[in-house]
């Protein structure tokens, strides 16, 4: 009898996103793994060539539902470099602030998913409850929970007024307290450690040869971080450590992410303490002069890279997006080999994959055309509490 390949996916092999794995097994052991991606491909790069730079910013922000600020900032950095725009320091600080808040949101989300994948659902419930704290702050600063829309060519659209600083700092204190508890879980809870340790190993040599990025690479002892190596926005002014770990497995990837959260809290405090005064935007031309630039950005999942070429018109000649998952997906094959079939979800989840980023999708939500009523955040919150209260659920 010849080899039989087991298809896993494309429907939700690990996360709620499509990817297809073709697995060759010997008993329960994985001998060979292949990955098929592309199910989320929507041609965003082509669409960018047919829209203006500003429209592209909004489109690229929707490449990903989580690291949306990463993509819009990464793209704008390239555009601003071509146009020779000097982004004001206050705008750089606000961009960095939102970037780090986004990292908190992403890492807490990941920790919950990791808990869920290994059957530790109370961890999932806790982290996702705590994640709401940072989501509220993001909504307070930008008006949106995701796809913040705070960026614009040449700066940011909204100022972070000093009356918001104490609210942010209080939330950071709460999150720091909670993260200490997660560090305790990650280092002391034996059922968690035993399930993750030694699973999905990836050696330092493999990380280096395959150019693996982000927390996945740092968990194998490779200290690469675009925030330090190729400083952008306000990172040059901040003091922070690049967290690494030498476990080289799923456990190490969990440890790196929870410890990175602690660095992020410190960065948020530094940003608020040293926030420069001044304008938040400079005027940008509609037509961007001909030129090209590459921008690198450390998204929560790893390095994001955008290449932009302008031709002197209001539309770009070429936009190229390389999201971190595409850089890491090769390594997943290596991580799965010689492990058990049951390890697939957690090993795949451990790179914190985002296939819509990788395939560059765009999510379209239908607008309710009948309603023109606008609700502010508080009204929406009250509405939802009342909605549940009428149905007998009290918060």
């Amino acid at each position: 009898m010849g080899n039989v390949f087991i298809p896993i996916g494309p429907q939700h092999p690990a996360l709620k996103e499509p990817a297809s794995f073709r697995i060759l097994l010997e008993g329960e052991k994985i001998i060979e793994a292949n990955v098929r991606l592309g199910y989320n491909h929507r041609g965003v790069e082509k669409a960018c060539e047919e829209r203006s730079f500003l429209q592209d910013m909004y489109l690229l922000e929707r490449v990903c539902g989580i690291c949306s600020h990463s993509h819009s900032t990464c793209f704008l950095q390239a555009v601003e470099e071509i146009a020779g725009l000097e982004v004001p320091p206050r705008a750089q600080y606000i961009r960095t602030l939102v970037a780090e808040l986004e990292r908190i949101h992403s890492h807490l989300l990941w920790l919950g998913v990791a808990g869920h994948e290994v059957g530790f659902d109370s961890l999932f419930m806790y982290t996702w409850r705590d994640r709401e704290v940072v989501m509220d702050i993001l909504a307070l600063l930008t008006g949106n929970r995701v796809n913040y829309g705070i960026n614009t060519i040449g700066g940011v659209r909204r100022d972070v007024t000093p009356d918001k600083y104490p609210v942010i700092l209080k939330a950071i204190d709460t999150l720091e307290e909670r993260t200490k508890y997660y560090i305790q879980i990650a280092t002391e809870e034996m059922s968690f450690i035993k399930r993750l340790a030694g699973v999905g190993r990836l050696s330092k040599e493999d990380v280096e040869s395959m150019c693996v990025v982000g927390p996945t690479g740092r968990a194998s002892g490779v200290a690469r971080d675009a925030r330090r190596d190729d400083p952008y926005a306000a990172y040059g002014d901040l003091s922070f450590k690049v967290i690494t770990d030498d476990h080289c497995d799923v456990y190490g990837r969990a440890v790196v992410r929870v410890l990175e959260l602690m660095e992020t809290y410190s960065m948020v405090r530094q940003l608020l303490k040293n926030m420069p005064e001044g304008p938040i935007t400079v005027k940008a031309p509609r037509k961007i002069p001909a030129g090209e630039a590459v921008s690198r950005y450390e998204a929560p999942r790893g390095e994001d890279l955008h290449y932009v070429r302008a031709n002197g018109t209001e539309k770009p000649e070429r936009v190229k997006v390389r999201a971190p998952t595409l850089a890491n997906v090769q390594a997943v094959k290596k991580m799965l080999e010689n492990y058990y079939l049951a390890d697939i979800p957690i090993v795949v989840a451990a790179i914190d994959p985002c296939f819509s980023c990788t395939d560059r999708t765009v999510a379209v939500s239908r607008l309710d055309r009948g309603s023109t009523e606008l609700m502010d955040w508080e009204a929406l919150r009250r509405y939802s509490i009342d909605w549940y209260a009428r149905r007998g659920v009290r918060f």
Partner: protein
Amino acid sequence: MAKEDEILQSLTKQFSALEGKIRIQRSRRMWARVEPADFASVLDYMRNKLGFVILCTITGLDEGENLGVLYHLAREDGIMLNVEVYVPKANPVVQTVTPIFPGADMYEREIVDLLGIKVEGLAPGFRYPLTDDWPAGQYPLRKDWKLDPSPKTGQTEES
């Protein structure tokens, strides 16, 4: 920009054909235009002698008569050298870089699918990112490729 200058000197000394083909855009950003015939040896020299150990990604470009392939290479210290290689559209062939950078597999499949660049030596595997039933010879990122807006199957807007 002392380090960038050193890299420029070192490359032009080793490859006289690169004289005037390398530019320093700003600190940590360099560009070099390399002839397809020299590409393998330049890449090898950069990887092994100049410390460009990271291949960030590969970008494909449509330049009209030519197709461009941009290899975004970086060092640990953040210096990035973007190597541009142009091949004629009539016969767009490049050699795979996967023996040196195994992580480049997906990047190369992407330029195969979206721009129709042939990558010699790329191991067989799934295509990326287009569907298996994508019509042959259709390369969406080429400038002359336009999306056909007429619905071919399913419901029309009136029904």
